[in-house]
């Protein structure tokens, strides 16, 4: 498996095990509703973000140690083409989300609902980005 496909899988995994639970807790409304800044939710977000950084850091370190040559090799033309395609797909998801969050939601929602919708948009765009990377490598292998 190409090194860059492994890092894309790692990013998908990190996203799933950190922001998956975050959005599950937010959706289940297990945290008490509170006015801004709602430190409980802020703390949960900080924990999810920190966990993601840790998982990504540890994963990159492991991948770098197991295949040091691949980790040092700069992306070639196929890697760049795959990244361009995945960024292009993620861009449309991000734009659609931003239109909803910035132009539609403010008329009926406020506070953390908008913040979480923006976060969900970013996470979804990232999932699409890494998902397209993984699919592209799978298709070309």
């Amino acid at each position, binding site marked *: 498996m190409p*090194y860059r496909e492994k890092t894309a899988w790692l990013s998908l995994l990190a996203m799933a095990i950190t922001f998956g639970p975050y959005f599950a807790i937010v959706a289940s409304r297990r945290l008490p509703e509170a006015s801004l800044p709602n430190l409980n939710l802020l703390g949960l977000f900080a924990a999810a973000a920190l966990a993601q950084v840790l998982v990504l850091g540890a994963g990159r370190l492991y991948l770098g140690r197991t295949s040091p040559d691949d980790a040092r*090799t700069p992306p*070639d*033309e*196929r890697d760049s083409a795959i990244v361009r395609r995945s960024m292009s797909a993620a861009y449309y998801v991000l734009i659609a989300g931003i239109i909803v969050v910035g132009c539609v939601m403010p008329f009926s929602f406020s506070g953390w609902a908008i913040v979480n919708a923006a976060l969900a948009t970013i996470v979804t765009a990232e999932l699409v980005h890494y998902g397209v990377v993984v699919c592209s490598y799978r298709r*070309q292998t």
Partner: protein
Amino acid sequence: MTQGSISNRIRSLRFHHGEMSQGELGQRIGVTRQTIAAIEAGKYSPSLVAAFRIAHVFAVPLSEVFQWETES
């Protein structure tokens, strides 16, 4: 528009050049071993520059490495 696909003889050229490995060829043209494997399998079409580099490594014209096969 003319329909067709690109085929290549990289596997055979590698064989005739001392069973050159995909990794070695990749190193010589600046791509990864996996990219050479994808090109060989016809799953990735290389850039013109990479195609010329491959031909240069084997010291053959480009048309001996890549062929355009039209679909009837």
